[in-house]
């Protein structure tokens, strides 16, 4: 195996193994931070994707809240009309449904702050009390409550919920323009 002996002799003489070792060290010095950087980039991309997904979900929830609130406002107007028509059965059913819708909004939308939750609670409390009064009036055989007063309170709640809806719309627009 003369060629093998010649090759090893040449390698020993030329010190090429040192050069290869040196190059390998350089590559590994460059490679480790590179790999770390790639990993960091991948992690940042994953975090950005997660944040974007959270943001999209939050926007969808806010949009759903705004849609539901708009429906609640319309139903409150209809409830006032039922009251004017002395349609107690429809009114009772509507009081209960509206209250449930507001309870659901509050439970589902975690982005609502304490003040906004307080506005929903205020309307829930008014609806619950009016529903109870109407039930008691029907139990007594009267079937009616002071509809003018009831509608005045419902109008107060309509105003408060309209303000809340406008505030949510403003916040939603601010978020969109802020990016």
């Amino acid at each position: 195996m003369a060629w093998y002996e010649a090759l090893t002799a040449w390698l020993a003489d030329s010190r090429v193994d040192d050069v290869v070792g040196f190059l390998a060290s350089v590559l590994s010095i460059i490679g480790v931070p590179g790999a770390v950087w790639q990993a960091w980039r991948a992690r940042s991309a994953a975090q950005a994707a997660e944040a974007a997904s959270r943001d999209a979900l939050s926007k969808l929830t806010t949009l759903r809240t705004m849609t539901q609130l708009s429906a609640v406002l319309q139903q409150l107007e209809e409830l006032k009309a039922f009251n004017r028509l002395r349609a107690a059965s429809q009114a009772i059913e509507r009081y209960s449904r509206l209250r449930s819708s507001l309870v659901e909004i509050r439970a589902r939308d975690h982005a609502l702050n304490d003040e906004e939750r307080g506005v929903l609670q205020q309307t829930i409390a008014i609806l619950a009390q009016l529903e109870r009064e109407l039930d008691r009036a029907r139990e007594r055989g009267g079937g009616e409550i002071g509809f003018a007063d009831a509608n005045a309170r419902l109008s107060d709640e309509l105003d408060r919920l309209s303000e809340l809806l406008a505030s949510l719309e403003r916040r939603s627009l601010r978020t969109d323009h802020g990016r």
Partner: protein
Amino acid sequence: MDAEKLGLLVDRLAAADAAGKLRWARGINARAYQASFPSSTVILEYVPSGSVLSDPGKGSTVNEYFQSEIKRAEGIVLRVLDEFGRDVAEISARELEEAGDLQRAALIKQLYERAHYEAGGERVIDELLASLTSDSR
């Protein structure tokens, strides 16, 4: 409901109101005002003499029920509603007076006056007067 706990609630409400943290609104009756929190509501109501407006379910016996009614009659009543608008507790200024807690009875009355001022229209008149005064200068 633990009376001491409700007494403490009266203290905390008075402190929160003094700090301007309560937003009073009109209640369903002409003499009622309410302030709502994220998942509860406090109602202050003036009950005129001879009124009967309590839940028949209150008190486990007829006698307890009527005693409860008598205690509630005439005066300021503080009621608490839960997150669904159900009545969960109440205490009246009269009950507190009878129990010798005159300080808290007075606090309930002060709270009612403040709520009446905030939600009953007087605040709007005062603000209007102040605005007209500053305009005329």
